[in-house]
């Protein structure tokens, strides 16, 4: 049996066939993005060696993913519930937030309609994301309350991230004062921050954007080097429009 097998392998046809197979395997191998084989010590996950021409079956989602509910996945009943929630809590929360920041918000409250809703993140976090043009607005439903916890203007963010231009003098002025910021945040959160709890830095100090402001609201006694100490983060551009707003979920 062994001799017979050896004889078979020696046949030229099979050698060519094996070479072709090796070439094919190499081509497939090259096509798959991969690095060195992972070392997995405990219960190694099964890793296929090659990809076939058959479409792969969708792998099961990891159990650790937070629940994401896309608008397309809402049932009719859930859409009705979402509509009610939007009218009763989410939009009023946005109204409250708009009132606090008024003309500093780079879009209109009227732009916030249910058709801008994209998804909800988390079973308990319940973060409702709306996309309005190049801005993202997230409203969190915490059961008894709802509040805006995030806003980002992509255009503003891009503008903020240019380096200082050599040969020009940065404009370190800021479009808002501490008193104004304190008033806005008070109207938003109900918390009166003291002047020293409002950390303000000119955007020109670390970017190419002149005349804007980075603002962090850090209560007295909290570590300024803990990223979770800043309860509300605000970035204003030179015109005083909000580029970024972020409020911690538990504040």
């Amino acid at each position: 049996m062994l001799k017979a097998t050896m004889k078979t392998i020696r046949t030229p046809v099979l050698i060519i066939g094996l070479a072709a197979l090796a070439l094919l395997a190499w081509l497939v191998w090259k096509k798959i993005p991969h690095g060195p084989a992972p070392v997995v010590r405990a219960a190694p996950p099964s890793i296929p060696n090659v990809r076939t021409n058959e479409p792969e079956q969708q792998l099961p989602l990891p159990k650790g993913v937070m629940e994401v509910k896309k608008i397309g996945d809402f049932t009719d009943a859930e859409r009705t519930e979402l509509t009610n929630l939007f009218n009763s809590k989410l939009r009023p929360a946005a109204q409250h937030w708009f009132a606090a920041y008024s003309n500093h918000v780079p879009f209109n409250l009227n732009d916030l309609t249910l058709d801008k809703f994209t998804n909800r993140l988390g079973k308990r976090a319940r973060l409702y994301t709306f996309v309005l043009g190049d801005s993202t607005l997230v409203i969190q439903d915490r059961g008894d309350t709802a509040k805006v916890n995030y806003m980002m203007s992509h255009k503003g963010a891009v503008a903020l991230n240019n380096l200082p231009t050599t040969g020009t003098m940065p404009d370190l002025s800021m479009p808002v004062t501490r008193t104004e910021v304190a008033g806005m945040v008070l109207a938003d959160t109900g918390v009166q921050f003291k002047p020293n709890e409002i950390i303000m830095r000119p955007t020109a100090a670390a970017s190419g954007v002149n005349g804007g402001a980075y603002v962090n609201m850090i209560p007295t006694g909290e570590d300024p080097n803990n990223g979770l100490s800043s309860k509300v983060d605000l970035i204003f551009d030179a015109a005083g429009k909000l580029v970024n707003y972020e409020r911690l979920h538990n504040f």
Partner: protein
Amino acid sequence: MEIFMKTKLKLLASLSFLAFIGCTSRADTYYLQSTASSGGAPYPFDPYHGAEPMTEIGPDIYMVDDTETMMFSGSMMSADSIDPTDPSNTNGTFTGSSQPANVRNYTKYGAQVFGFLDTNSVLNDDNNTNLFNACAAINGPTNGLPWLTIAKYGPNACIIRADNFDYTQTNADFALLICDKLQTPTWKAIDFGGASDAQDGWLVQGTVPNADVTSPMFFEVTNLNQAYNAFFKVIPYSGAQVAIVGTNQPFDVVSNTIALTTQVYDLSGTTNEQFNVNVDGAVCRSHLTTSNVFTIETPYTPDGLGNIFLVADGHGSVSDPASPPADTQIFFEGMNSIPLDFENQTYLLFQGDNASLDAGVDYIEWVISTPQTCAAIISHPSGAVVFAGTNSFNAGAIALPWNFTEADGVTPYSETTYDVHIIAFDREDLYLTNKIETNGVRVGAGTMLVYQDEEPTQNGAYINATTGQAMNDEGSFFVNMYRSSSLTQYSPTQVGTNRQLVVQLDQSIEDPIWADQDMLGLPQQIQRALPSDPNACYYSDITIAEARGSSTTVGGGNYLTNFFDNNEFALWTARSPAPNWRWRKAAFWTPYSAGAPPFAFPDVCGIRDTATQHTSFIRKNCGLFFKGQLNLRRFEDNSATVRANVAESLDLLWVCGNNEFPGACDPTYSWKFCVDSTTSEFDPQVTAAKPLLVGLPEMIYTTIYDDELLLLNYTHVKTH
């Protein structure tokens, strides 16, 4: 006298020690040690008229020690006379003539181990009926006052029952203190020069997180050192008390060099207190003189309102450095700040310190308030000039770019530091010494998943199984990252190369990998190089998803005693194959992993503080650590959710972003967004553990924008 003593001793054989905190009574109140166990009524005056030692146990409340000395001796806790000729030492073996040398309290009690007992778990999970019955046999007080009741347990341990401690009005933790003398003051003034180190006194035997304080609580202290007296009492404690005093008042306008006098009080047994001075987290130019007086050169801080912080870190806990207890806070931190208005005619705006050569060009920026001529000189530490220039400027900020070259503008600068001298002719000069980053952050590659098994009791077996599942789940997630059928469906052009590499390291009874020196042990894996590039690290991210731990250790505990400490981890990490040894992301889901600088786990992971990362052209990284105790399970108000589930959720959210479904994943969501969202999903348990987000809050998973982050460019950080 002898009869009286014996009577007294019988009364005290089952001693109850009272500690009182937080009383709002204004009149002086005196309790007698001898009647504490029976709930003796307080006196409005000292009945011994000062003849007996006393200690203040609360505001205007005193404990008069009329029991002579109490100690642990022999096989039971008792009260004994300190007179060696007194024949009444029937309960113990104490002999005054052979009392051991009076070493520091750290040494006396360093081997004692504190445990906070969950009596339900003791009975149902651990099946330890003896311990449960011992707890149940201790009667609490009937007078409604905060009490500690102490009972002997076994030959070498005691159980302490705490009743009626109300911590709802404080943010501090419940701290059980220990000392060899009752009359020792709880606090002492700390001298940063070290003069106060000689004073010995109270130290923390154990703590209970503020949110977990209830009534009654039961503690076990084992491995008692019975050669010395030991007294326990309770105070609310979260670290040193720091005060900034002196001539400056809050919101004063300051300029040039100012002096701040500080007063720091900490437990009387604390030594080697460390300190840090900063302005809103950013390094400032400060110097310690004498008597805790700091001078601060304000022109090196941008003008405007700023808070000067003084942070004091003390090693306030009894612990054996060679065998630190698990799940124990060893370091405690206290801080205070004073807001001041910095106003200088000329001041530094952007130092350009720590810039990476990868930045190509570094910037030094300063501000002048009047039009004038300024000069700037960049030189070697030896003084050899590589750049010198003079020009006239209007009032405002001036940016000086430098491309890391010698005077010819071409030859690369070869040293790791350089000096900058800025001359603004209307004031004193600014002198800077800047470092060039030579040991940056690991290039984004694989992820290490590390965890430790619990003792497989009923609870532990469940935790082990669930943790193992979560880690397998996450391991598969990374392995399949580039597959078209996976959740992420990423390509290397989206997240960088080698991001699918992963290793699971489970510290188990069968395979205690933390001690292994072979290729699959923790040290070797941390130092592993990519086969394709021996100068690049195989792993850039690390998640310790579940393990016992303390401020200085990961692992250990009663079941798997093996652990590694911060020094070992620093060595393993620093021995990486690349000069860029710093972890790109580190999440240590272990109790008290935030530690205390300068060798805390965030430091030894190479994660620089947020203010530095926000103001330097350095390679960026991020981390999550905890200042408090962490649950093993019961996250999300759901007993089925274990710590590793939460750790896995955070990792996945960072990799996938807001839209965690196939085909929609986005690896540009910020670390802060992911930490806050995960915390939101699993609170209140995560927040109760006092998470510390270190490094760059805007850090993102994909590596393809690392060069932008280097230059403080957050264009591609989605954050939501």
